[in-house]
C-alpha cells in the first residue's frame, strides 16, 4: 500500500529537523531533544527497512531495540550532566559551558 | 449463539448483520461496531464510578461510626447524582498566569489514561475489547500517560504547591512503576503470554496461589500508582493544599476525582484478572455471562481491600515511601523474578522423569512455585528482623515542656 519511499523521506525530514535543533538551540536540554528526534528517525528507518526488505529475519528489530537502550542511557547521563552543571554555574546555555576551552 | 448465555456477542452479531443488510460493506460495519463497543465500555466505566463513589463513602462512614449518605434513594445509593449535578453547574475558574493548553489538557489525559486500560480488560471468555499480544506492556504504557497528566497539571497551574505535588508525582509514580513492571513479568513468565485475556486463559491454577509475593507487589505498587492513601503524597492536604489539583475547579476537578476512583477500581479489576483468575469459575467457559459475574465479584472483593487500606492507613512520609520502594519492593521483585524463572525452567527439565499424570501437572507446578515463594518470604522476614531498629534514636536533648523562668533578682529582694 504505502511505498518504502514515503517512510524514508519522512525519516529524512525528521532527521534534518532534529539536526537543525542540535545545531541551533542555545539550551542544552533543547539540544538533547533534537538528538532524540534524530534517534527516532533512525528507528523508523530501521523498522521500515526490516518490514520492506528483510521481513523474514529479525535483524532490523534487534537493532531498533539497541537504539532504544542507547537513547535511554544517553538521556539519563545527558540530563544528569546538565543538572550538575546548572548546580555549579547556574546556566544551561551550551555556550557558557566552555571551561575546557583554554 | 444463545442470547441468554452470551448477550454481548449476540447483540454484536445481530447489529453487524443489520448493518450489512441495509447496504453497508462488511469492513465499514466492523468499524462502526468497534466504535459503538468502545463507547459502551467507556460509559460502563464511568457508570461504575457512580456506584464506587457511593460505596466508598458508605464504607468510610461505617468505619468512622457514622451513617454516611442516606437521603437520596434507598441507603443513599443515588447520592452521587446530585453531587454530579452540583459539579456540572460550578463555575470554571482559570487563574491568571496558567498555561492554558496544558492546564486544560491535564484532566483529559489523566482520565483517558485510566479509561484506555479498559480496552484490554477481559470481562469474559468472549467479551473482551481487544486481546493485543502485548497487553501487559500496554497497561504499563497507559500508566506512563497518567503520570504525564499529573505532571502537566502541577506545572501549568502556576502555583508552588501544585509544582511540589508534581515533583512528588514524578518521584512516586515513576519509581513505583519499576516494581510494578517486575511483578507483572511473573504472570507473563508463568502464563507464557503477554495478552491479558490469554493470561486469564492460562490460569488453570490462579497465579495468586502460584506466586503470592508477585500479587502483593503488584497490588501495593498499583495503589501507589493511583496516588491514594497511604501513598497520597501528591495531594497531601496538610502539607501542600491539594497538590497538583489545587487550582482546578468545577468539572475539571471532577475529572481528576473521577479518574482517581476509576483508577482505584481499574487496579482492582486488573489484580482480579491477572492474579485471581479473572472470569474463571464453574461453568464460565460454557456460559460467558457467568464469567462477567465472577469477574466483578472478584474485582469488588479486591476493591473492598483497596478502600479498606485507604480508610485505615496513615499517610507515609516521602522518604519512607521511597525507601519502601527502592530498598524493599524492588529488590524483592528482582529476587522473585530470577527465582521464578530458574525454578520454572528447572521444573520442566525435571518433570519428564517423574511420571506425574497430566491432570496433576499444573498443581505440582503451583506447589513448587508456592514453596519457593514461602522460602523467599521466610528469608525476607529474617533479613528484616536482623535490621530492625530496636531503640528510638534520640536526636536532640530532651527539654522540659514548661518551666517558669527564674524571677529577676530585683523581684526577690
Amino acid at each position, binding site marked *: 500500500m504505502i511505498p518504502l519511499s514515503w517512510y524514508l523521506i519522512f525519516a529524512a525530514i525528521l532527521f534534518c529537523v532534529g539536526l537543525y535543533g542540535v545545531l541551533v538551540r542555545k539550551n542544552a536540554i533543547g539540544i538533547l531533544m533534537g538528538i*532524540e528526534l534524530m534517534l527516532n528517525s533512525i528507528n523508523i528507518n530501521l523498522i521500515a527497512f526490516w518490514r520492506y526488505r528483510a521481513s523474514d529475519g529479525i535483524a532490523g528489530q534487534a537493532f531498533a531495540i539497541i537504539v532504544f537502550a542507547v537513547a535511554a542511557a544517553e538521556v539519563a*547521563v545527558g540530563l544528569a550532566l546538565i543538572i550538575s552543571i546548572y548546580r555549579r554555574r547556574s546556566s544551561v546555555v551550551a555556550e557558557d559551558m566552555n571551561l575546557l576551552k583554554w | 449463539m444463545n442470547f441468554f448465555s452470551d448477550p454481548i456477542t449476540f447483540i454484536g452479531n445481530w447489529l453487524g448483520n443489520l448493518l450489512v443488510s441495509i447496504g453497508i460493506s462488511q469492513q465499514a460495519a466492523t468499524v462502526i461496531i468497534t466504535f459503538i463497543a468502545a463507547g459502551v465500555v467507556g460509559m460502563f466505566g464511568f457508570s461504575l464510578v457512580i456506584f464506587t463513589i457511593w460505596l466508598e463513602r458508605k464504607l468510610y462512614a461505617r468505619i468512622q461510626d457514622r451513617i454516611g449518605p442516606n437521603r437520596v434513594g434507598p441507603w443513599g445509593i443515588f447520592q452521587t447524582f446530585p453531587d454530579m449535578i452540583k459539579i456540572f453547574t460550578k463555575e470554571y475558574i482559570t487563574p491568571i498566569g496558567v498555561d492554558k493548553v496544558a492546564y486544560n489538557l491535564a484532566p483529559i489525559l489523566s482520565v483517558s489514561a485510566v479509561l484506555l486500560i479498559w480496552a484490554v480488560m477481559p470481562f469474559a471468555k468472549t467479551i473482551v475489547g481487544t486481546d493485543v499480544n502485548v497487553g501487559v506492556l500496554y497497561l504499563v504504557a497507559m500508566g506512563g500517560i497518567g503520570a504525564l497528566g499529573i505532571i502537566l497539571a502541577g506545572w501549568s497551574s502556576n502555583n508552588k504547591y501544585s509544582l511540589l505535588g508534581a515533583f512528588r508525582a514524578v518521584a512516586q509514580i515513576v519509581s513505583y512503576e519499576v516494581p510494578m513492571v517486575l511483578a507483572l513479568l511473573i504472570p507473563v513468565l508463568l502464563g507464557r503470554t503477554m495478552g491479558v485475556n490469554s493470561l486469564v486463559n492460562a490460569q488453570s491454577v490462579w497465579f495468586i496461589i502460584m506466586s503470592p509475593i508477585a500479587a502483593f507487589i503488584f497490588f501495593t505498587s498499583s495503589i501507589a500508582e493511583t496516588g491514594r492513601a497511604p501513598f497520597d503524597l501528591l495531594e497531601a492536604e496538610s502539607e501542600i493544599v491539594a497538590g497538583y489539583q489545587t487550582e482546578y475547579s468545577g468539572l475539571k476537578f471532577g475529572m481528576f476525582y473521577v479518574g482517581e476512583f476509576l483508577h482505584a477500581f481499574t487496579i482492582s479489576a486488573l489484580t482480579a484478572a491477572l492474579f485471581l483468575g479473572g472470569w474463571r469459575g464453574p461453568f464460565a467457559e460454557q456460559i460467558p455471562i457467568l464469567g462477567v459475574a465472577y469477574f466483578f465479584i472478584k474485582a469488588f472483593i479486591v476493591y473492598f481491600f483497596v478502600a479498606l487500606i485507604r480508610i485505615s492507613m496513615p499517610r507515609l512520609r516521602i522518604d519512607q515511601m521511597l525507601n519502601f520502594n527502592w530498598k524493599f519492593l524492588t529488590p524483592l521483585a528482582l529476587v522473585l523474578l530470577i527465582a521464578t524463572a530458574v525454578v520454572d525452567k528447572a521444573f520442566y527439565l525435571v518433570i519428564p522423569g517423574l511420571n506425574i499424570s497430566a491432570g496433576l501437572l499444573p498443581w505440582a507446578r503451583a506447589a513448587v512455585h508456592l514453596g519457593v515463594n514461602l522460602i523467599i518470604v521466610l528469608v525476607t522476614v529474617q533479613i528484616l528482623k536482623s535490621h530492625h531498629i530496636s531503640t528510638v534514636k534520640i536526636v536532640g536533648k530532651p527539654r522540659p515542656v514548661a518551666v517558669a523562668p527564674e524571677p529577676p533578682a530585683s523581684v526577690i529582694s
Partner: protein
Amino acid sequence: MAAEQIIFILVAAVTLGAAISVVTSRNLIHSALWLILALFGVAIFYVLLDAGFFAVIQVIIYIGAIAILFIFAAMLTRRVMQETGPQSNSTWWLGALIAVLLFAGIALIFVNWQGFTTTASDLTNPGGRIVQLGLALVSPDQYLLPFELASILLVAAMIGAIYVAGEKKQ
C-alpha cells in the same frame, strides 16, 4: 487513495509540525510537550509498519520515561532562559542551511537507488514475531552479545547518572 495512505499523510504532517515546534518553541516545557506529540506520531508509524510491540515500547520508554525526564529537567532549571531572549544561536541560518543541504543529499541518494519505491509483501507469521525477537536477543549465535552490551551500557549510565547528579556530601 487507500485509507492507510490518508492515515500516513495526516500522521506525518502532525509529527513533522510537532517536530518543528520542538526545535523552535521558546518555552522549553512547550518543546517537551511537542516532543511528546512527535513521539506519539512515530509510535503510530510503528503500528503502520506491523511492529505493534515497538509502538508500545515507544510509549513506555519515550513518553513514560524520557519525556517525563525532560519535563523534570526543564522544571528544575527553569529560572534561567524562561522565555527571555531568543532561544536560537545568532547563526541559525547556517544551521538551517546545513539541514536543508543534508536533506538534499539524502534525497539525491534515494532517487538514484532502485529499491526506493519497494512495496511491502504480506508479513508472514505476524503473531510469532515477538517470540522470534525474544529468542533472537538471547541466543548466542544471533544477538546475545549486543543485548548484553546494551545492558552493561544501561548499568553504566545508571551509575554515572547517579554519581554525576547526586549531591556531594562533604
